[in-house]
């Protein structure tokens, strides 16, 4: 059928966020029109090809973003699970919705999650940690997460799997930062703690545990935390501790 052929060829275009959105819209129309063939024939093929697409391009389309917890816009779970990145910004989200997200079959398969300025608090973080997850990059910037949320994150399985963690503009305070610093993040390459009320105490914890707990870190962002000149110096000094092949950039 011509439509199936067209969709197959769309899978082989240059991967991009926009291309993925177009693909999903077309796939949804096909799914509604020919459900059995779409599920049995096209879906396995699409899954295989899409594995070669970068995760960042496989962003859940805007109109599906709420499908994890809302029935208003029902999307076949199989299609939803083709997306690997979910971004929501400036939208209030309930903790129960986040729980639904991580318990959702497709939610568990997300690899990049960006929930910025969504009025999230510690309870939301707890909800987020209720299910097992494949998340590799987590951006929770611009929320109301405090030290308890930070502690929970540090204690979770995510600490072992994240390559990027962004908690900018959350009042984590020294306790929250210390909790993060005192746990090992073996794969973490980027840590964004801009404007997190880190303070000298939090910075000291990072400096203290840096070598042991952040072996893969390449980018440490700590500006807007009102460090003393001495502490700033200690943080910048971290850059010199790394061999050239694992160079580190510290912004503070």
């Amino acid at each position, binding site marked *: 059928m011509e439509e199936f052929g067209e969709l197959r060829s769309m899978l082989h275009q240059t991967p991009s*966020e*926009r291309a993925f*959105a*177009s693909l999903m*819209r*077309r796939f949804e129309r096909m799914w509604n029109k020919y459900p059995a063939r779409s599920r049995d024939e096209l879906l396995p093929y699409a899954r295989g090809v899409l594995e070669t697409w970068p995760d960042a391009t496989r962003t859940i*389309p*805007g*109109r599906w973003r709420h499908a994890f917890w809302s029935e208003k816009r029902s999307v076949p779970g199989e299609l939803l699970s083709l997306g690997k990145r979910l971004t929501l*910004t*400036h939208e209030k989200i309930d903790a129960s919705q986040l729980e639904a997200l991580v318990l959702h079959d497709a939610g568990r398969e997300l690899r990049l999650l960006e929930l*910025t*300025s969504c009025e999230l608090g510690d309870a939301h973080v707890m909800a987020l940690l209720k299910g097992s997850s494949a998340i590799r990059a987590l951006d929770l*910037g*611009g929320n109301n997460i405090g030290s308890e949320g930070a502690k929970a994150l540090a204690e979770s399985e995510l600490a072992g799997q994240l390559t990027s963690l962004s908690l*900018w*503009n959350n009042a984590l305070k020294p306790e929250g930062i210390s909790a993060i610093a005192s746990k090992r993040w073996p794969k973490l390459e980027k840590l*964004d703690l*801009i*404007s997190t009320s880190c303070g000298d105490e939090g910075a000291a914890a990072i400096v203290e545990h840096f070598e042991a707990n952040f072996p893969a870190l390449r980018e440490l*962002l700590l*500006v*807007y935390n009102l460090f003393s000149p001495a502490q700033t110096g200690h943080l910048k000094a971290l850059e010199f501790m790394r061999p050239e092949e694992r160079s580190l950039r510290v*912004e503070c």
Partner: protein
Amino acid sequence: MAITLEDVRDHVTSGTIAELIKHTHTSRVALFDPMARIFLAVQPEHADENNRVDWSKVQVNPEDLEKPVTLQDIEAWFKTSPPVNAVSSFRQLFDTWRTESPTWSEVIQTCARVSPMAIRSVLPNSMELANRQIQEMFEGFGEPVGRALATVAASYNNASDSAMVAYLTPEAVHAYLEGCETVFTPNSLNSLMRALPSDLDLPHEAGEVYADIMIGLKDHESLDDGYSYSYRIDQRWLDGEQIARIVLANKTNIERARWLMATLAFDGHTQAFDAFGEILGDEELGTDALLYLGLGGEWGRAVAARLVEDEQTSELARTHAETLLEFEPPTHPESDRMLSPLLGHLVKHHRFGFTFDSMLIEKALGEPVVGTPTPYEDLSKLYNKQAEEPTEQAWLDLMWMIAFEPGRYLSQENYENAVALGLLGREPSEDELLRVIDRLDWGKQINSSAKIGYGEALLGAGASEEVFHHAMAKFATLQRTNYLGYIESCFEEPAKKSEVPWTNSIERLVWQHRYDKQNVYHTLEHPKQFAEAEGDGEVAIDAPGDILFECHISALVPSKITVRGDVTLSIDPVAKTFVFEGLPQTVEGVLPPMFGDSYTVQGEIHKNRGIFGVNGVVIEGQKVEDLELVPANEKAPIKIATLESSTTCRITLSEKYSETLGNHVLSLLRDLEDVQALAEIRAMQSPVAAYTLYLFSQLAPSDYMRDAAMRQLCELAELAEPYLGEVPEPKGPAPIATVSFDAIIERMQALSETPLHQGTEAAYMEQRWVGFEDVNLFPGDGDDDDYDDEEYDEDYDDYDGGYGEENYQVVSAVMLSEPFEDGQEQTRPYWFSEDGADSMLGNFAGLAGNGMWYESKAYGEVYVDEDRDLILMDLTLERENYDGWPIQGGAYLACWKCKEGWLFASWGRSRSELQRVIGLDFWPTQLQWRSIEGWLGY
């Protein structure tokens, strides 16, 4: 004076930063980093509840002031959610002149990514968009900027960014549509779509999003039960399937679905017909779709043929398509194109091919020649219109100042910045003028309060005609908003004032610009050229009555073009003048710009009217009426004559279709009970009108309409023969039955639930009358139960001259204006004579009830039918109210006879009601009226 780094340091250390902030914009050139550092120190806690920044709380490390600010610094700052007011002020550090990173463009894109809610604070405002550099910056914005604008719109539940979004890239527009999917109203969506340029390369998926939005809006509360003008499909980026999806989603509201289909058919997009093909198999709308395919000529027929061949086509759709293919539409006698009543809309040629960008000067510019800048004091005088003999250098420097600081007052600080950038003192030359023109913001002026437009500055700086044209072309291509009066004050008025010899051509171009803005068309294609003739010194070709033609004269020599027998257009390209002769009045005028060493003359003639242009620009006195009619099956020559046998003259002829016919069909499709529109179609008296009536007689959704269409078709005699197999006998307009005055009263009473007013002495006429209002009462003096005569007498001093409250309603009444003596019919009133109709206006004001309009101006159309003893007038009334504001009203007047005598009607109610009172089968068609103008006095 401009501030220095030391000033900044002093304010920072002394805690008086607020003093610095007012210098943000002017310090952006020399002190970008220190000023930016100050903003980057602003944190959310520094703002009060109204988002105002308390600068005394802002702490900046003086040692950081000179540290270069990077884009990463700015990104980090945005992540802290700085106060919006601080972001707006920070944005003053940026403009399109800044080329090193961080640029304005980079800041906007960073903001879109990490702080989308602040996006409106960093973008230029909608008044700054008519600038090439800003538009180019927008062309670099991708999806994040569109999505950020949508995030803000969604947050405020108001998607009103059309002016801004219209300049974004397809990806950004797509993201905006997607992000606002649930926020749009029919109005805001319509407004956005109208603003988007047709050449925007939106992806197919954007069409899907749009279709989803339209379907989501079909039950929007702002739409009433009838058709709503704000709910219409913009099909520019849709395919037939997407269009059909929207229409079919609306089929529970059949009126709405029909409204959508009617507007689709006339929009000039072939996919509309694909959509009708998709709808053809629908149980409810399939027959409507069939009618549309039939009306769609070659495009509709192609879809029908494709459906018949396609195995997937449903049985119903196939049956419909086969029905349509049995019809045999007529073809254009010359081009052989299958005729369709929609062709007037789908194949248009209103503009004769002129585009402003043809006047752009494209050339590589030499380096600026640097000289001495005009002193600030001299520029200030010039800016304030106080300079006595300004030099070209001064005007050029002033233009550079305004290009550098559009919309801002001239100041010493700005001047110093412009000098620092090397913008002032450049030697005036064509290259330099082109360079400054390229930087101008076409929403601004040099000094709007002193009424100095760019045109005045250009002329002052020594701009040639070509450079002036180039500037106009820049304006026309960059300014999409239609600012009333801008082009006149910017270009036309300075040209007139300066009396440059080419003033007249500027006036023509200004006129053309206005005309283009008011006549925006989407066309499926341009008319087909079907004949051509060429000769030395002169040439002639026979042309049908309705024609588009173009004459090409290979040298700038005078020529005379003759059309329709003896109407001549004489062109003098050297004197740049033209003369129309052979019309009731000779029309003389000036020509638009003459470029190169040849010129063209264009004409579009339909029935007795024509419009003409030279070099693609419509010429003054362009609307020519009263041309001698050429019968449909006859031809009249078009000739070019020059006195130079070495000149090559060429004429090309192209199809001309009636837009009026299309309008009548559109009117009919929007109201499928409108039999008057059928009469209008019949009045066009053309093969395509006959075919249209035949289509409606076979395919209209109701028996009533099919019968009415057949009746009108039969009136077309020979034109109807191909469809009826014989020449029908036209019956002509139905005679008006002469009934008694009492029968007239009955007809009127049938229109109202309340008793009519009647009397035997109508105001000054002293005749029998009947009306919905009391014709003897001045407006505002009506019955009032609480009215007390005594109180009225006491308040007599306040009497306002009999007008009472302002009530501009025209009285709807019928009066026996000339009773037959002894019951014997008398000759017709004087009004039926050649010059008599005007005098009927006197009767109008003779009714006291129409007193508000006494001595007002009345203009409109009159129909005099001696065969049926009928006069009708359709008038617009115009006067000033008591505050001096102009007001307008409408009235119908009528004269016909009843058994007792000649009747006069003054009518403020609907036309169809008057039609019923008279007993008229159809209102006269548009071609049967002539214009009338007069005064509503005695």
